[in-house]
């Protein structure tokens, strides 16, 4: 069983564009992606969103596994890959075929960082995600760990078990475990930036400065994409998939 083939070998052959953002919790990436969507729609582009855990059938299993703490590093990795695969097949690829700009809040790199932080083999997880289309643009939001932790821990009352990496038994305290787990994830992300040539963004800059930089990054990829004709409704692909 050779592991020679890996993620990154399926370039996007479709007319649409895939733009993804990555980063630890509290890096501000979702805010940036939301602002980008608004701007792109204003420019007349057809925009769709794609998020983790969007496939309803798999979601029921994932929630069950999380609620009852049935997941190990291996099954955690596989159930998320299942969900992600469904999302690629039924959500991302059709939208790319239709020529949409697909915005994804987290992509395969989340799994690479999070699963490896859980002890899953690096090469195995990269091979697992071989079916994923390579994004047109991937942006990593780099933020000092303390800043991200402050943003999350000051704003949100309760951390979830797996989110805090409690399954790894890094610490008995939820918050302390979360900090250590996020540190591990961040360390993995830092390795992914050069490995996959992710564009990195300084997530400590003012929101609007980051947004301008993000728009500058995407602009070259918009050449050749024709915005929808005036008067055509754009709502069709706009709703977030439940």
């Amino acid at each position: 069983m050779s592991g020679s083939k890996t993620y990154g070998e399926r370039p996007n052959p479709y007319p649409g564009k895939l733009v993804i953002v990555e980063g630890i919790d509290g890096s501000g990436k979702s805010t940036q992606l939301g602002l980008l969507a608004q701007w792109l729609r204003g420019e007349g582009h057809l925009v769709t969103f794609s998020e983790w855990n969007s496939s309803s059938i798999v979601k029921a299993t994932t929630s069950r596994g999380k609620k009852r703490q049935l997941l190990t590093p291996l099954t955690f990795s596989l159930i998320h890959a299942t969900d992600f695969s469904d999302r690629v097949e039924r959500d991302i690829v059709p939208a790319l075929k239709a020529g949409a700009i697909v915005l994804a809040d987290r992509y395969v790199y989340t799994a690479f960082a999070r699963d490896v932080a859980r002890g899953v083999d690096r090469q195995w997880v990269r091979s697992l995600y071989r079916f994923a289309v390579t994004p047109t643009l991937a942006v990593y939001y780099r933020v000092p760990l303390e800043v991200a932790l402050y943003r999350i821990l000051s704003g949100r009352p309760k951390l979830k078990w797996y989110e805090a990496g409690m399954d790894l038994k890094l610490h008995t305290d939820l918050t302390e475990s979360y900090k250590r787990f996020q540190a591990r994830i961040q360390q993995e992300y830092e390795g992914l930036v050069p490995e996959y040539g992710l564009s990195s963004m300084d997530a400590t800059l003012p929101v609007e400065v980051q947004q301008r930089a993000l728009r500058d990054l995407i602009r070259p990829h918009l050449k050749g994409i024709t915005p929808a004709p005036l008067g055509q409704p754009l709502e069709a692909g706009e709703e977030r998939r439940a």
Partner: protein
Amino acid sequence: MRRFESYGQGIPGLEPGDLSGWLIVVEGPDGVGRTTHVDRLRRHLEQLGYAVAETGFTRSDLASRGIRRAKQGNTLGTNAFNLFYATDFADRLEQQILPALRAGFVMITDRYIYSLIARAIVRGADPDWIKQVYSFALLPDAVFYLRIGAQQLVHRVLADGPFDYWESGMDVPMGEDLYDSFVTYQGRIIHELDGLAREYAFQTLDAARDKDDISEELCASVSRLLLKRSAGATA
């Protein structure tokens, strides 16, 4: 002594040295009579004084419900289905197979990664990819392959009732109707299993014979295998 190994990098956090039982796999296409033979083998081994445990597809605590639901509506993408089965398998490996092996049981599994690899390949998955996905699996002590031709299989299955939608590969239709699709689909599954039988050195049993003969051969082979190591332990 490190007796159990994985095909690839293995299960995160596993110490294979903890495992002492036996892992026996019975492989073969749908309708070949695996259930009967697994049953008989189990009783035979218990007669000899071995503790036996069993597992089979979609029997995981984690994913079996979701897979059943997904099958009802056929609402999951093909590749996602492949990975859902991998999730189910991983859960059974960690929650059923490993504990049984730690406790020194003979674990009989009604199909293993090979059928899952075959069904994924027939549904268009890249063979290298799906084998790599399953590379965390433990190498079994032995794989017994109940080998039968597609036509013979048809006769056997028809005798037991109507063709099953999934066993006929109707999610990826391969013929005009259930019969055509069954023959083509099972034929391709058998073709893949034959290839895997060579690659992974299965012990092939001719399943077109009388089932008593097959059982006898299977029970004798497994008994020999277990005796070999039990003898080593007392010597």
